């Protein structure tokens, strides 16, 4: 048997667990060791990544979901940390009537990604004084991610993370979203304020702050738009969400 054929047989044994695949490797107790190692490592990795989901579902419920995911999605990335990339969508199909399940998973996943995301120093407030506000735009820290949500998964996640009794699942107001980013080395998240996602999206698209205020004025009126944008800017600075102005 060629090396390539042997390695594909081994893959088939790990993925399917079928006796015929084990027999092609010579059988014996060693094949079971590798099968056990393979599945144990994947379940452990998922449990490490989705720690709050484990608490919400319970270990048995989580491990049953993980087992089905492992059967359906053999790993392909060289880093085990990436294995859970599709798990959020997968659990959404397992709990279609409980949308908070997938959203708790999404927060777990996103917080993990932000934790190891690109570094950037937060902008110091005095930098605003020298900006040319006719043209300057807002550049958020590269770790910032916006997550639309439909439930109170964020409140459930926070309660689970601090070992508090979680609230019952309920739907969020229409258009709710979470902002997830890193303050220094620690991931944080909070609910987005009204218009905050729009202002961030326009800024990310390259529009200057003056242009962003003008667009906001179409909805809020000029005075309220300037007040709202200025309040957001101050909050972002205080929260370490801005990397640069310019």
């Amino acid at each position, binding site marked *: 048997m*060629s*090396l*390539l054929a*042997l*390695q*594909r047989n*081994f*893959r088939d044994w*790990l*993925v399917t667990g079928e006796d015929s695949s084990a027999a092609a*490797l*010579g059988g*014996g*107790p*060693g*094949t079971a*060791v*590798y099968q056990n*190692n*393979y599945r144990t*490592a*994947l379940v452990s*990795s998922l449990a490490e990544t989705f720690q709050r989901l484990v608490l919400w579902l319970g270990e048995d419920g989580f491990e049953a979901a993980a087992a089905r995911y492992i059967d359906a999605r*053999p*790993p*392909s*990335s*060289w*880093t*085990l*940390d990436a*294995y859970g990339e599709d798990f959020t969508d997968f659990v959404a199909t397992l709990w279609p009537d409980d949308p908070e399940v997938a959203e708790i998973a999404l927060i777990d996943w996103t917080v993990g990604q*932000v*934790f*190891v*995301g*690109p*570094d950037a120093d937060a902008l110091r407030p005095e930098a605003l004084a020298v900006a040319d506000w006719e043209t300057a735009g807002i550049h958020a820290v590269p770790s910032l991610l916006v997550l639309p949500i439909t439930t109170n998964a964020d409140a459930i996640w926070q309660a689970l993370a601090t070992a508090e009794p979680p609230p019952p699942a309920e739907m969020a107001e229409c258009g709710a979203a979470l902002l997830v980013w*890193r303050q220094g*080395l*620690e991931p944080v998240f909070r609910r987005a304020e009204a218009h905050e996602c729009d202002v961030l999206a326009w800024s990310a698209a390259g529009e200057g702050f003056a242009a962003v205020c003008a667009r906001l004025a179409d909805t809020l009126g000029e005075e309220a738009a300037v007040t709202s944008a200025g309040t957001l800017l101050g909050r972002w600075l205080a929260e370490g969400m801005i990397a640069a102005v310019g």
Partner: protein
Amino acid sequence: MSDTLAGFGLGMRRPHYRSYIDGTAPVDFIEVISENFMIAGGKPLDTLMKARRNYPLALHGVSMSIGSADGLRDDYLRELRRLVDLMEPAVVSDHLCWTRIDEFNSHDLLPLPYTEEALDVVCRNIDRAQEALGRRMLLENPSSYIAFPGAMTEWEFLAEMTRRTGCGLLLDVNNIYVSAVNHGFAASDYLAGIPMDAVGQIHLAGHVKGEHLLIDTHDQPVPDEVWALYRAATALAGPVPTMIERDDNIPELEALCAELDIARSIAADERIAA
């Protein structure tokens, strides 16, 4: 600039990060799993940068898949090179095994048949890795639970691999013991067949006894049989940087340092005897 690895070290694990950041851990070097730090940024890289200022570093990989019949992955080599350039480690190592084939990645260190074909594949892949990284690598002997029919023993395979590629060896003494018991060969034959001048680092660890086989778990203290084999290896190899791997059931740092003192004592005994 890269330091030289020497003396006695430990795998840097999360419960002990503070001691490595502070530089208070009484070790000569640290080793980390490369893949845990092949990331964009954040706390893990920050921690390693700080620890790196205090200790020489070994990068130990688990996902290069040096035995893959379909070659190495460009993206993996690029990311590892980026980490190497950033950290300037004294040693870069991985395992004589395969973990990936086609688009499937097992995340386990899977055994190779010790055939001429596998030797060609492994040597070709090592050549490519050493070129991509711009440096010599060390390859670690694996523990295994299956042995395939082959043209040579594992130690003959390792000896020829080092001769052809110029790579060094990371000799895992626990893995020799585990595989010797599981496959019924003499560990002394293994040591006698290893080109000791190629050994650049030694690993020590513990294992557990399964129903049929010994399992390399890294969750136990180094057992007496492995210490005895370490003594024999040290007598043959001379002074080689040595470390203990403990990945699970991790005790206090003091307990690991006490184990490391046993390694120091054995190595000192063998130097005197020589």
